[in-house]
């Protein structure tokens, strides 16, 4: 039995609809009754967002796990929102296809939740975000309307792309019932290099060179020593643990193209003073699962930081500056070439006010480069009063429009109240 407790609040009821129509009916009734609903997929990202202002109903998506339609020759798949990503990947893999996404915990995480929480991973460099792969959605709005937008073909401009609004909206505009995606062929080969640097600046130089032609990496991450230590799967390949920073770079394509890139990239990293190794093809998938796993909730404060790609260097500097001054041992992973970073701040022995102050300081600095910081997870165990921590940071300029949109689709304010920006 799944535990639907969230921030020490338990729902009065758990409802698990088994059809999209039932899902819509649940929401219509909740709207009429004014019951606050927390949509619940695999629960892997439920710590994103603030505590619910009210919490009456947990809406489990577990009863909607089906693949609706899949035509491998068209490279399009439609699934119910309660299918797990792992389950969908299995179906696709049988035909040499995949959704090129790599969020943590794919065997638990459900499609609807991944979309609603705007999940991503290092593959974004090569393949873009889930938004780019979503062709259409069927969504139950809070008032019980069950609606579609988009289509089941790879190109469509009929109607507004209303489905994009639900991606990353944390279920506050409606609950995703079904999703249609275009999918990609699994590359013939995927292979990874690991490079351990002792210089703090050389990895950035390496990343910058590996963004230039002829390299076409599909993922690049920079891990600091604390992050590297937290990913045991890396340790057999990096026996000398005195490295300052570790860079992992992943290539995909035909064996010839992958081999040329990886060899040149290894040489380039060595030139920059790294110890670099090329992993076997067999190690590729497990290593990246382990790396992606770094961004799941793990009992500390997990921050996601974003900035324009050209400001990547500065973004890293600002993150480090904020924690170094405080003597915090923070793990950090940069999803390079994408402009995203994840940082884990310790909570044990750190007063909540200190976290709030550090976060405010970081946000102020990031604002100067057009960046932001969001709390991705703050564990219950922290005992921190969430009112002292601002989860999402400054409001977007278009907040008034967002509010009126929400009022139009969730007039009773029942969906995840108090948890999102809007």
């Amino acid at each position, binding site marked *: 039995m799944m535990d639907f407790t969230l921030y020490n609040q338990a729902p009065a009821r758990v409802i698990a609809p088994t059809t999209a129509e039932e899902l819509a009916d649940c929401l219509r009734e909740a709207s009429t009754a004014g019951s606050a609903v927390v949509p619940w997929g695999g629960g892997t990202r439920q710590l994103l967002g603030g505590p619910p202002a009210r919490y009456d109903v947990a809406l489990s998506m577990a009863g909607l796990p089906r693949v609706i339609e899949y*035509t491998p*020759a*068209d*490279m*399009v798949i439609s699934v119910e929102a309660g299918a797990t990503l792992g389950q969908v990947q299995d179906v696709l893999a049988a035909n040499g296809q995949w959704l090129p996404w790599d969020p943590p915990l794919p065997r638990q995480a459900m499609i609807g939740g991944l979309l609603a929480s705007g999940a991503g991973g290092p593959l974004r460099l090569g393949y*873009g975000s889930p*938004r*780019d792969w979503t062709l259409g959605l069927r969504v139950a*709005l809070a008032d019980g*309307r*069950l*609606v*579609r*937008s988009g*289509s*089941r*073909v*790879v*190109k*469509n*401009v*009929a*109607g*507004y*792309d*209303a489905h*994009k*609004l639900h*991606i990353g*909206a944390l279920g506050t*505009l409606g609950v995703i019932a079904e999703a249609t995606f275009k999918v*990609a*062929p699994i590359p*013939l080969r995927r292979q990874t290099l690991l490079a351990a640097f002792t210089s703090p600046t050389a990895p950035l130089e390496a990343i910058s060179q590996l963004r230039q*032609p*002829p390299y076409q990496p599909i993922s690049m991450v920079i891990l600091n020593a604390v992050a590297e230590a937290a990913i045991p799967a890396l340790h057999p390949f990096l026996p000398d643990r005195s490295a300052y920073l570790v860079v992992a770079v992943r290539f995909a394509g*035909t064996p*010839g*193209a992958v081999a040329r*890139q990886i060899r040149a990239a290894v040489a380039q990293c060595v030139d920059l003073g790294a110890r670099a190794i090329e992993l076997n093809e067999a190690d590729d998938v497990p290593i990246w699962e382990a790396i992606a796993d770094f961004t799941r909730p793990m009992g500390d404060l997990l921050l*996601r930081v*974003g*900035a*324009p*790609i*050209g*400001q990547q260097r500065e973004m890293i500097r600002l993150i480090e500056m904020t924690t170094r001054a405080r003597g915090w041992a923070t793990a950090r992973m940069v999803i390079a070439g994408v*402009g*995203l970073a994840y940082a884990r701040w310790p909570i044990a022995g750190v007063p909540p006010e200190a976290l709030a102050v550090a976060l405010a300081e970081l946000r102020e600095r990031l604002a100067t480069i057009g960046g*932001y910081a*969001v709390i991705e997870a703050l564990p219950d165990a922290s005992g921190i009063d969430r009112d002292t921590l601002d989860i999402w940071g400054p409001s*977007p*300029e*278009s907040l008034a*429009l*967002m509010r009126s*949109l929400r009022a*139009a*689709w969730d007039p009773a304010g029942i969906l995840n109240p108090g948890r999102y*920006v809007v």
Partner: protein
Amino acid sequence: MIRETLIAALQSAIGPEYVLHRPEELMLYEYDGSALDQAMPDVVVLPGSTAEVAAAVRVAANMGVPVVARGAGTGLAGGTVPDQGGMVISLARLNRVLTIDPDSRTAVVQPGVVNLDLSLAAAPYGLHFAPDPSSQRSSTIGGNAGSNAGGPHCLKYGVTTNHILAATLVLADGGVVRLGSSATDAPGYDLLGVVVGSEGTLGVITELTVRLTRNAEDVRTFLAVFDDLEAAGACVSAIIAEGIIPAALEMMSGEGIAAVEASVHAGYPPDARAVLLIEIDGLREDLADEAKRIAAICTASGASDLRAATDAAQRARLWAGRKGALAACGRIAPHYHIVDGVVPRSRLPEVLRYSEEVAARYGMKVVNIFHAGDGNLHPLLLFDLRVPGTRERAIAAGEEILKACVAAGGTISGEHGIGIEKRDYMPWLFSAQDLGVFADLRAVFDPAGVMNPGKLLPRVIG
């Protein structure tokens, strides 16, 4: 009288020289790239800044006058035809590339920048703007965003929405708001995602931050020749099913091939039933492998010939044939109506054949010139509008083809938009409830309904 008041107010808001109101000036703005719709605006303004756009919108909105934003007017669905009169805002003067950031691979541009000019400006950095509609020599980035334009290379690189990071939008009340962010995944609803493709119904875009794409290491272009239309369609489907995503996979059929050859001398065999233009790009080793697989698929599908462009000049010629195809078809008939439907790629052969049957039934010539790899059909119905009843027959024939696309699991527009032409077909795809949600969305941005009213949504919902 109201018109005079409007003109005077606009003249004082943005200067008299940029307010057009004489009939001979307005005539230029009564049509777009579609042959089927025309309507005269009451006034046209050419603002030179976001503030001037906002000022003009405020004037119009206060008087309840419709506002229609217009880029180069190359749209193909009547989206910028002011069928309710009112004010056309031409973004032609906002035509500067403001910055190119090669490190972020982004550019900040004004909406009136011509698509190809942006790629030319980015070329010194080894970058380009990936969406490449066939109109790219004249269509603008703002217009591309408004209609979520596609193009041959969108098969691999995605359509316009995948390449817009942020935009400045003038709202119906004259307010100015910034949507999206150059920072990846900044929190907040993806309002930008609905504004792109909204055909000017949610506001007027006055600045865009766009993603630039790195030029590929190598490119190879092939022309596959077929004596059988359905075999060509099946070949397209087989290439995709094999797991190859070409950079572009274009098809041309029927009399269009000869017309293009006569006009562009691209090297197409004039007597072919269908040709495929196949382009792959990427790393050399990947291309060598893909080229081999594509050749095998073409042969197995019954291609009578497969030619590879051996140099950049040959490649450019093959593309000149594709990009000049619409104009070349002027040799066949004086007017055309280009249909823009999409079907699942596996359904291409049957829908292609059906489109020819429909055209024959309506006594029209048809040439299919289209983005086959996406399943995005463009049957080009050719006719002479001076023959009475032709316009109606063209519309009816297009309607039948689009209905077949929907029946095959597809859609009524892949890239040209809904505009006027297809607004009343929307209920084929969407329920009254779906459309009601679209209407909600529109009302959030534009409660008074002044932004390009009557476009995109059916005239009657439910």
